[in-house]
């Protein structure tokens, strides 16, 4: 460890691993450390032993749950938007060659005490109970407007400039009902609460477009998921980094970030010091440099079957919009199962999560838990969502944001790009990595 590196990265969460990979490709000498003996930090997927170590003080998992190796239990509930940034990064870096992906089978929304499917095709839309006939016509007009709107072409604006007009006014313009607005804002645009109504509409238009184009890529739902759990993603990028020379050390305690004249010069572990000129780390490695912005509760639930009223979907997203349960923030339920190689074949996994609003968070997620059917076991996690206080350019210690309450990785990718810019001074431009065949040819030559 007593060597000199360009950059030391601490924590092997997805954000850190993507950056480690990108910087190694560019020829930076990277040392990547993690205090845990497994990859992924907060974005790890745990086997049963690790899960019980973390939540039950090392109690042995009951034998009826099956084999350790069959479990890869995510700690955070997120899916990949099929047309989102993470997919682009995976394709450009060719990290896809290490991983396999499957679709999430369906997207559902809670409405008036019932679960309804978010339509994935015209047929499903026509039959959907979510709107009455006349409302469907109004909604159709709205979606056509969203689809055709081009900022540079005023003839598509119909008198509305979405760069300034609040979303609320756009909804009113189309005469949409409250239930439809809830559906569009929360189930399609994936807003977690309603403050967006007063912000310019372009933000929501972008989100609707991302949802629709993601849905259009493979159908069924806009989401993809890596076989063996989300923890495969950081591991894939860690391998990319290693292939380009990154050095990995797991199970390595970090005692101190060392500074000289207000700038980072290294990282100390025991009596070893690794020198560097920059550090990238997750909030847990620099707690004094972050502030708490929210708190989330996540209940990881082990189920004995698919959840009721989801057409026996082997995987799903279910959104409970805040208005439906008189809250400020939506409750999300994310479900996966053995068909994604994350648990033993007779079990299902669901994570119920929300941003905490009261002193009794477990009660807050009850509406979500009530929809799951019988719960075999439940592991509850309450976590701070933190972000760095400073941007890191002064002392060259760049801290990532915690994984937030959104259901996908778009904000993670925003943070990656933002960190990349601050670390290198350049805007991230993704270059296509040579294919495996090209690399092999090059090597033979």
């Amino acid at each position, binding site marked *: 460890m007593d060597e000199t590196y360009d950059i030391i990265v601490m924590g092997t969460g997805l954000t850190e691993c993507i950056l480690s990979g990108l910087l190694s490709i560019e020829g930076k000498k990277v040392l990547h450390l993690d205090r845990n003996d*497994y*990859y992924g930090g907060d974005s790890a997927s745990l*086997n049963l032993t690790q899960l019980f170590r973390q939540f039950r003080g090392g109690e042995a998992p009951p034998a009826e749950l099956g084999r350790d*190796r069959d479990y890869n239990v995510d700690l955070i509930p997120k899916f990949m938007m*099929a047309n989102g940034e993470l997919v682009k990064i*995976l*394709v450009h870096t060719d990290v*896809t*060659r290490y*991983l*396999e*992906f*499957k*679709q999430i089978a369906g997207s559902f929304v809670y409405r008036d005490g019932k679960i309804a499917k978010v*339509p*994935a*095709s*015209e047929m499903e*839309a*026509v039959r*959907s109970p*979510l*709107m009455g006939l006349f409302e*469907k016509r109004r*909604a*159709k007009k709205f*979606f056509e407007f969203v*689809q055709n709107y081009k900022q540079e072409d005023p003839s598509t604006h119909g008198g509305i400039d979405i760069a300034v007009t609040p979303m609320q006014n756009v909804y009113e313009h189309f005469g949409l009902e409250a239930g439809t607005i809830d559906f569009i804002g929360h189930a399609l645009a994936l807003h977690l609460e309603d403050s967006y109504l007063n912000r310019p509409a372009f933000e929501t238009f972008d989100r609707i477009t991302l949802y629709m*184009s993601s*849905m*259009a*890529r*493979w*159908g069924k739902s806009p989401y993809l998921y890596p*076989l*063996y759990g989300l923890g*495969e993603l950081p*591991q*894939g990028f*860690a*391998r990319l980094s*290693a*292939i*380009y*020379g990154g*050095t*990995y*050390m*797991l199970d*390595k305690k970090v005692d101190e970030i060392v500074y000289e004249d207000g700038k980072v010069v290294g990282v100390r572990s025991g009596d070893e010091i690794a020198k560097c000129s920059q550090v990238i780390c997750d909030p847990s490695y620099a707690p004094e440099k972050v502030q708490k912005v929210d708190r989330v509760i996540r209940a990881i639930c082990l189920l004995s079957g698919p959840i009721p009223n989801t057409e026996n979907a082997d995987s799903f997203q279910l959104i409970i919009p805040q208005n439906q349960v008189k809250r400020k923030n939506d409750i999300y339920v994310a479900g996966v199962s*053995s*068909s994604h*190689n994350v648990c033993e*074949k007779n079990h299902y996994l669901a994570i119920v999560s929300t941003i905490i609003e009261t002193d009794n968070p477990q009660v807050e997620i009850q509406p979500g838990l009530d929809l799951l059917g019988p719960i075999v076991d439940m592991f509850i996690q309450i976590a701070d969502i933190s972000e760095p206080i400073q941007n890191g350019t002064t002392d060259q210690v760049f801290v990532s944001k915690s994984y937030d309450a959104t259901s996908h990785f778009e904000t993670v990718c925003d943070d990656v790009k933002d960190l990349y810019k601050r670390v290198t001074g350049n805007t991230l431009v993704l270059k296509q990595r040579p294919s*495996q065949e090209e*690399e*092999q040819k*090059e*090597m*033979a030559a």
Partner: protein
Amino acid sequence: MKPVQVKLVLLGEAAVGKSSLVLRFVNDEFQENKEPTIGAAFLTQKCRLEDKVIKFEIWDTAGQERFHSLAPMYYRNAQAAVIVYDVTKASSLVKAKSWVKELQRQANPNIVIALTGNKADLVSSGRSKSSSEDEDNQEGEENQDEEDEDHGVTREVPTEEASAYAQEAGLLFYETSAKNGQGVAEVFTEIAKKIPLEHVLSARGRGASSSSRVDLQTGGGLGGQQHKGVCAC
């Protein structure tokens, strides 16, 4: 005959000759002072048998296990593993055994494992070794712990010991030399023979049906029509 794809992973302590074995198998070459592996650590090579053609997708460690930091993703879904130790270094067999345990606990239950004692050329009986040549070899293995100092070229792992262990643990067993080629092709051919066809056919991934896999590179099969469909709700 359409080749069947088989993911094969290499495991073993640093500098035992993992990359050299692949280089011998894929390019029939040997480099005396090979650098610790970084860079392209993923190669393919076909292996023709009477009844099948197997295309090995060979994963090398990219140095990730130098500090015991190899990711489980690495051996996930592997249908074959070559676990390498160095016949002149007893500690490397200990490490190899811990890999066997790890794979038997965590990897694909049908994985075919070959235990390989490499650098057999250094100890081949009947060949008197010139000490200068051996010293040269030593210098190529610098990313080692201090043990290396007195790491001579006497055999530290008797063939019988490793072979008995392999038999007990249900592994294929070979002594090889990436340097002179001894045993290298056999390791891969025997693995190819031993891989059960039914598992090869359902390649990659257990449990999951392949039908709903998506290939991110191809970008999805649905056109704009579907897109409009969603908008019509």
